[in-house]
């Protein structure tokens, strides 16, 4: 078990290194750097000025050196021009004398965002907090409803309940977040169409719309009215898939010998489902739920952009749209950790739940 964990952590580290290097390479391509120089310095810079801007800001060194500096295994760059020293670890708050020679993520320095002009750790911390709340509510809504849907459908295979619930599950998997989000906003949060004008004319709601079409206000204060739509949008897409997996696993369990034995023994259908079938049927969905996290991350990016909720996904889009190198690197580190940790948890959890599997 220990060896297994060590190996997994090793692979995880290697993956994170490769991935951040790829992101580093792609964000540091010459055209991207020129774009950065022009957006940071001035739009009307000549090519020579761009080159000198890149040199003063440490972008002129070889790629691999700068990647090392970002990691914190190579001393940060310094640049001296007309007696003024600039450098990776030197900033307005940290004078030359106090500056450390190493400042990368190993030293806990995640760099500075060029879009937001603030330390990446601060931005990312707040964004992850916001996304955490979103994910929490998505999980609270999605997991129980998906499991219930799947178990109900798989309980009696081929019955009318099964057909209807399976159709619902397929429909939700076929509706990407940007489609369901758009439809939900139109139906529930539009002042001109959907149900809001009707409710407003009847005097049942105070504002002009039932739900709010943006979730910006949820950054300070989460209420049902500003948070329900984004949560439902993400939950709907993920729900169908988990429900289908649960259904498949449930139908398989319901045809097992021990269920037939229990039924023949005279145990009631309800007791068979709850006491005998459910526990075994929920092993497979557990791994599926864990592996859903990367997909949820994807949905989070879309939904946060659509509803203007300033979480991790929104930050990622802002960083990517403006080629904010250090912000993007940190975002990819976070994403890799999320993806690989959930994979690890799903593997360990699977072995833990299913005694027939042993990790060797």
């Amino acid at each position: 078990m220990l060896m297994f964990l060590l190996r997994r952590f090793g692979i995880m580290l290697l993956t994170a290194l490769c991935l951040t290097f790829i992101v580093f390479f792609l964000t540091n391509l010459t055209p991207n750097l020129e774009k950065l120089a022009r957006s940071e310095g001035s739009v009307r810079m000549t090519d020579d000025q761009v080159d000198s801007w890149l040199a003063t800001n440490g972008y002129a060194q070889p790629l691999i050196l700068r990647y090392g500096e970002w990691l914190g295994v190579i001393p940060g760059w310094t640049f001296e021009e007309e007696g003024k020293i600039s450098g990776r670890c030197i900033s307005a708050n940290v004078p030359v004398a106090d500056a450390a020679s190493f400042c990368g993520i190993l030293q806990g320095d995640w760099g500075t965002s060029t879009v937001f002009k603030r330390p990446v750790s601060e931005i990312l911390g707040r964004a992850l907090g916001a996304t955490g709340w979103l994910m929490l509510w998505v999980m609270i809504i999605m997991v129980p409803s998906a499991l219930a849907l799947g178990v109900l459908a798989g309980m009696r295979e081929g019955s009318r309940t099964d057909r209807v619930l399976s159709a619902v599950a397929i429909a939700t998997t076929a509706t990407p977040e940007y489609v369901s989000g758009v439809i939900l906003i139109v139906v529930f949060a539009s002042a001109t169409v959907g149900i809001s004008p009707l409710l407003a004319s009847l005097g049942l709601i105070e504002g002009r719309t039932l739900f709010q079409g943006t979730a910006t206000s949820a950054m300070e204060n989460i209420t049902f009215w500003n948070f329900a739509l984004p949560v439902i949008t993400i939950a709907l897409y993920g729900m169908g898939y988990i429900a289908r997996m649960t259904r498949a696993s449930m139908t398989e369990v319901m045809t097992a010998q021990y269920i037939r034995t229990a039924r023949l023994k005279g145990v009631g259908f309800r007791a068979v489902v709850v006491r005998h079938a459910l526990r075994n049927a929920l092993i497979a969905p557990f791994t599926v739920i864990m592996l859903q996290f990367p997909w949820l991350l994807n949905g989070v990016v879309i939904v946060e952009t659509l509803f203007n909720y300033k979480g991790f996904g929104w930050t990622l889009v802002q960083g990517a749209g403006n080629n904010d190198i250090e912000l993007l690197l940190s975002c990819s580190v976070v994403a890799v950790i999320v993806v690989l940790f959930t994979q690890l948890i799903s593997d360990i959890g699977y072995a833990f739940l299913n005694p027939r599997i042993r990790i060797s």
Partner: protein
Amino acid sequence: MEPIGWGGIFARMIIQFWPVWAALIITYAVSIHYRRRLGLYGKLFDSTVGMIGFGIVMFWVYTAFFADIIITHDPLGQLSGMKNKSPGTAAPDDATYAYYLLGGDNLARDVFSRMVMGARRVLAIAPAATAFAFMVGITLGLPAGYFAGKLDTALSFLANLVLAFPVILLFYLLVTPEIRDTGIPIVLAAVLFIFPVIFLVTLFQSRYFTNPTRRNLYVGITLVIGLWAYSGLAFNADPLGIWSMEPNLLNVFVAVVFVNAPTVFRIVRGIVLDLRSRDYVAAGQTRGEGAWYIMLWEILPNARGPLIVDFCLRIGYTTILLGTLGFFGLGVSPESPDWGSTINDGRRLLSIFPHPAVVPAIALMSLVLGLNLLADGLREESMKD
């Protein structure tokens, strides 16, 4: 002229789609009549779910095919006074059709015609990109599952690396206009597009190497056509100028193939790991068949069921991915009528004028739903064997 109501709008849309209905009726009549002779495709017509799914998919396929006849206005043309008009508004007198059936968008273009043309854009890219992803996934997944060992470890690591990437970050990095100057999309295209050629050459070589005349014929044809298309698609260097791809389209295409291929690889590898312990594989090995013959002519045909089902699902997923690209403004071109870009354009005025975004949203949803139902029907029918 007076605007028409929803009844009139639907009646006119149904009339406008007449070539699609005609083609659908012919398809269904012929297929149901000959369904006992058509193998898995014929069996599809025994399952209601499969038939509905197939119907929806074919509706969009025929819509894409007959788009020029169906559209009522130029999808890029702007008519004065039609900006954000609601569905059923009468068009100016000199227009090609009397109404904007589904209203106008924020640039006064006809939403209905853009939706119809969007089907053509989407269906031109999604199935092709999925097919390329399958070629890459199969060509790498077969040896990884069959030989296992170091090759498998290395390829699986690479696949997991791509899968650990947040898809949207990857898209932002790969589809920006700046990256075109660096030539990275061309390198990626050069790597990814060669796989179909490798696949087909190995396919024929492994089977016909004992019969040089046939081998030379098949491999020759593959090489000539494959490399001709390859030079045009990847490097835009086709001497005859038939095969070519706009740089922006190439960017999107390559990014979508790149994201999809690792998942296909994992599926193929999993199936091969399962199938390689079967008796017919052992029989082939005892006969002294080559490894590639066993992989391509013994294992692959037996893996076709799950692969066909996944292919249908994956076209739907690719459609969603293309929509995602459009949603973030990374689509083929800002003018393009493809559904994702149109949703993105429409969402800014969503709460006031919802129709420009809702129409392509429903179109995209129905296509993906159709593909899902089709996959479900195929899975059900293929399991009955």
